């Protein structure tokens, strides 16, 4: 789905913090959406989580910096960090350039598949409404 200039792949799940989730079995890959990276501006650094760390849905687990602004990234599902994208510590602008591809943030071994129900799909009418409200809020 494309909303204005922002891409939202149909096969992904989304939260209200502008994260996406790709579900493959028990492993959930998390990244920042196209809208989220635009809102952040040029990302100069991303601190990735330690593998093995437990994370909770909706709780901060990593941070990013843009324009001297330190923002916290919240986990899209609860579980254990299975893999972190260490490449983004070296080249964080890949999050801006390829948010759904090489700019992925972390892979989480999900503890509770039921938590996916808390997320949105592009086909949900609520999703387009949410993005519209966010675009108005941030004048995007």
């Amino acid at each position, binding site marked *: 789905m494309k909303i204005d200039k922002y891409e939202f792949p149909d096969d992904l799940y989304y939260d209200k913090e502008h994260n996406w989730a790709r579900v493959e079995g028990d492993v959930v890959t998390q990244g920042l959406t196209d809208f989220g990276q635009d809102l952040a501006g040029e990302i100069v650094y991303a601190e990735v989580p330690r593998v093995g760390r437990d994370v909770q849905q909706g709780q901060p687990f990593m941070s990013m910096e843009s324009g001297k*602004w330190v923002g916290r990234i919240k986990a899209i599902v609860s579980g254990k960090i299975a893999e972190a994208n260490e490449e983004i510590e070296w080249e964080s602008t890949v999050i801006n350039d390829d948010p759904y591809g090489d700019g992925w943030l972390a892979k989480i071994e999900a503890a509770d598949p039921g938590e996916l129900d808390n997320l949105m799909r592009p086909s949900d009418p609520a999703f387009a409404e949410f993005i519209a409200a966010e675009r108005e809020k941030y004048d995007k």
Partner: protein
Amino acid sequence: MEMKLYHLGHVPWLESQLIYHALPRLDMEGLILLAPTEPYVCIGYHQDVTQEVDLDYCQAHGIPVFRREVGGGAVYLDGNQLFYQLLLHKDHPLALSDKGAFYRTLLEPVAATYRGMGIAAHYKPVNDIITAEGRKIAGTGAAEIGDYLILVGNIIMDFDYETMVRVLRVPNEKYRDKVYKSLRENLSTIKRELGAVPPLGEIEASLVSNYQVVLGPLERAELPPAVYDKVAELERTHTTDEWLYKRGKRREACPELKRREQQTKIATGVEVAQRMWKAPGGLIRAIMETREGCIAEVSLSGDFFFYPADKLEALEAALAGVALNAVESAIAEFYRREGIESPGVTPADFARALTGQGA
């Protein structure tokens, strides 16, 4: 409800940081004005202290070093700087904007305070306040802690440039000298602009008055004891070696030469950098100041041969003002014009050294 103003005067250096870290953890909004009693070095949340700060120098001179939860670079802070620290809940109307608008709205009171003193300062995106001549005159940074957005910054009354460059970890003295000159050129202070500093009380009153334009009436308040309890609690975590030495932003991902490379951000668009490239004919080292993607000043050295030798200085001069993405053609043209010979070192090698795209 009116927002609280915590006007604290000079406070111990650690409190000048930990108080604003404590408030969001206690679910408190407010505007804090304070200055540190003692000088210290403060690094950005994502920095690697061992790469940024000369820790031996700081220890030998009793200068504490602190990692804040806010972004940006290493700074030397002292009592000649008035800190403003604004904490807004994420649902506060002023927090519901993108970063550019947030900074623009909330740094305008600071710019207005400078203008009130007769300094023609204005906001420059994304997060700078600059003089009419384009010099930075205030430091700023922001963070999200819990459900709060935090904007911190300082009004620089006077600045100890010498100590600032001394506390930084630099690869060599030539580099330190370049950082010093660049800082002097690109960072100004009230004292430099006006020749004298107005009384602190006047600056504070003006800043409060200007913040009331955007925040509404501010109610002066004392910090409740719970804040100091939280400060004491945070002191136990935020002054440990584990916190200070937390892994931070790494330098470029390349062994050998890259380890000796360095860059220091002076102001938005202005950097001092040391870069190297090992050409077949020898090592090229460039120490330079860049402004908005162009070389402002560069020193070239290394163990390569360059004939006529006295033309190396002329090459440095010829590169002033040249965009980094156009250096190779500028150097090639210089070679043709001056009949330069440099066995095993081509204009492309110099370009690689200057742009850092060689290794």
